């Protein structure tokens, strides 16, 4: 199989995923209907990315062949899609939701920066502990749970920074510290994986080559097991950091921007 054939053929249109995404879009459009606020492009592109992360060759590669592909998938699920969703949620919708006492109580607990940080970063670190990660690779149910938990804790993590109701967001300097410490944690994990000897996730050492693309991956792409783990670590480290950095800079810019108006 060539790279081209792989990219064309290895799509797995799992009905539950497709229907789930479609349902998300419908619900979003219906609820948003009256609101006319919140950026639909960002919500829709978030959902599109979700579909991509779960049905594209990225998923196939990440499941069996490449740790680095799996990292990209997690990166999308925890760090890219949730902020896009939050940016796309209209303020009025969030306010309406928060008027529900039960939701309000949950939000009150989970949106505490400490709780949100612990959940978001803890999930990121926890799922990469070799034992848990390997278990998720071995069991489909656990794997689905892993992905859902990334989405949920990702949303919880970004909530205090990007909450659709700006008054509920953290103070800017606090937010910078929040993102910075999260970035340091992910960097350490990434750096650790980069410099560790290969084999932290043994399933990727000798993948079960059902698609017959192992030669392609190993030789043509040059991703042997060592390079693969290194690349995975580096992706978590540098582009991961870049997402947090973007958050930090956006917060700082908004803070300085607000200065002019408030005086």
């Amino acid at each position, binding site marked *: 199989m060539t790279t081209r054939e792989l990219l064309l053929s290895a799509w797995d249109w799992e009905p539950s995923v497709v229907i789930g995404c479609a349902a998300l879009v419908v619900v979003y459009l219906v609820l948003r209907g009256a609101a006319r606020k919140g950026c639909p492009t960002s919500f829709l592109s978030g959902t599109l990315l979700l579909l991509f992360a779960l049905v594209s060759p990225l998923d196939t590669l990440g499941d069996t062949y490449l740790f680095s592909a799996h990292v990209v998938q997690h990166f999308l699920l925890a760090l890219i899609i949730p902020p896009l969703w939050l940016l796309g949620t209209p303020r009025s919708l969030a306010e309406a939701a928060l008027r529900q006492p039960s939701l309000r109580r949950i939000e009150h607990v989970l949106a505490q920066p400490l709780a949100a940080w612990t959940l978001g970063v803890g999930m990121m670190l926890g799922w990469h502990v070799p034992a848990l990660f390997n278990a998720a690779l071995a069991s489909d149910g656990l794997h689905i749970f892993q992905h859902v938990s990334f989405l949920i804790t990702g949303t919880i993590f970004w909530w205090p920074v990007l909450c659709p109701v700006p008054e509920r967001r953290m103070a800017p*300097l606090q937010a*910078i510290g929040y993102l*910075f410490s999260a970035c340091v944690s992910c*960097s350490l994990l990434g750096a650790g994986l*980069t410099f560790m000897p290969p084999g932290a996730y043994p399933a990727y050492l000798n993948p079960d080559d059902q698609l017959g693309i192992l030669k392609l991956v190993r030789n043509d792409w*040059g*991703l042997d097991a060592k*390079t693969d783990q*290194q*690349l995975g670590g*580096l*992706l978590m*480290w*540098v582009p991961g*950091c*870049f997402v947090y*950095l973007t958050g*930090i*800079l956006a917060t*700082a*810019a908004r*803070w*300085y*921007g607000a*200065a*002019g108006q*408030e*005086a």
Partner: protein
Amino acid sequence: MSPAPPRSAIRVWLSTIDHKQIGILYMLTALFFFVVGGLEAMAMRAQLSAPNLKFLAPETYDQMFTMHGTTMIFLVVMPALVGFGVYLVPLMVGASDMAFPRLNALGYWVTLGGGVLLYASFLAGGAPDAGWFSYAPLSEKPFSPHAGSDYWALGLLLLSAGSVIAAVNFVVTIATLRAPGMTIRRLPLFVWITLVNSVLILAAMPALNAALVMLLSDRVLAAHFFDPAHGGSPILWQHYFWIFGHPEVYILVLPAFGMISEIIPVFSRKPIFGYGFVAASTLAIAFLSFGVWVHHMFAVALGRVFISVFAAASMLIAVPTGIKVLNWAATLVGGSIRFTTAMLFAVAFLLEFTVGGLSGLAFAVVPIDWQLTDTYFVVAHLHYVAFGGIAFALFAGAYYWFPKITGHLLNEPLGRWNFWMVVIGFNLTFFVQHILGLLGMPRRVYTYPDLPWWAVLNQISTFGAVILGLGALVFVANLFASLAFGARAGNDPWDAWTLEWAAASPPPTDNFEHVPPVRSRRPLWDLKHPEAPDWATRGGG
């Protein structure tokens, strides 16, 4: 209280805890070592003025470039920048001193001690000669048996401790001693950058300390961290050194950015363009500077994937740097530019630093690095940043703040001589070194064969260095002449806007009789222009 007995000037200076006197001590120390480091550079340029010369023995030449690099970085630029900071930060935030005056004095004396220890190596069997980044295993006992490298490591440990002390003091001063109304968002950019820079120092210096402790363990206790014969790793030294070393480059250049951000607006008669972006890009630089160190190691067989990720980060850091340069240039546009010597240096900084920044970007393009790293192209690049960037900003800062520090203006005609000789000499010296690199001349060679063009280009470089050296002497002469005979400056000779110009020149021990109200980023503008204060428009902060 009975009047204190009169004390001799020497005792006053030795025991001072006044931030202004300590700042001056730092700056004078930097000036002294600037002359020393300059003489070392001159010795090297003399040796290289023709092929196969025997003016310096090879080992002497190696000591010269090691000491030149170490001196200029740790004993000139660092003390000069800390000195300016220690002098100016309390004045700029409207405080009467640093948060911990005694700690401040300790920081200075530790720094001086580090310098003395480093130079004591000359008396103890030879200065260090393994280069300013002292790559292991060359710097290990079997290959550098004499004590020079031990003095180097110990001296650097002290200098690093001095920097950490100063950084702690800066953070606390800026966090707790600001005048009423001086919010974080109204900090003068020099102070804001000093704050970010201090955190950078606190995070980067320990990597150097750890590396030095490990090197000393190897050298003195026969440990094996960097010794490949016993399983140690020379690459580990490179990682550790550059995890410190690349942030260090930004530690050196950020305060220079801060000075430029103060000087260009005042002489353009306009507030800085895009304050928020200049401030935020500082954060971005500080942050990214920890993810780019591997670009010093691209020639090592580290693997293509590994290298390319760091190449990407190294390229990214060019973006916030570019934002800064463009904002300074945009500050000029629409201004009413006064070309004092300070402003001349600041404008020259913009151009020279842009050259240095672009040649630096070349090294993020990995294949170019594979050709040109460790050649004279690097030497040219780093001097465009270190001299064309940092030193030009320091000259500009000296001309700008000398009146505040001494009460006298620096002589402007001498300043013009100073400026033009330095600019011409600098570009002659270092521009041709780009070409020497392309011709294949490696750095750190004590001599070279008589290949086509090598001799003539090296002669031009040496000739330029002489002009540059003379220009620097004009500066030193101007300092002392103006101190004795310079025109009185008055409190605010440049019609500037930050708080230090509201104090007397030189400021009294407690700095301010009363601190002017701070309601915007330019408190003195508001005072002078009650009809259109900044706080009534967008420049509030």
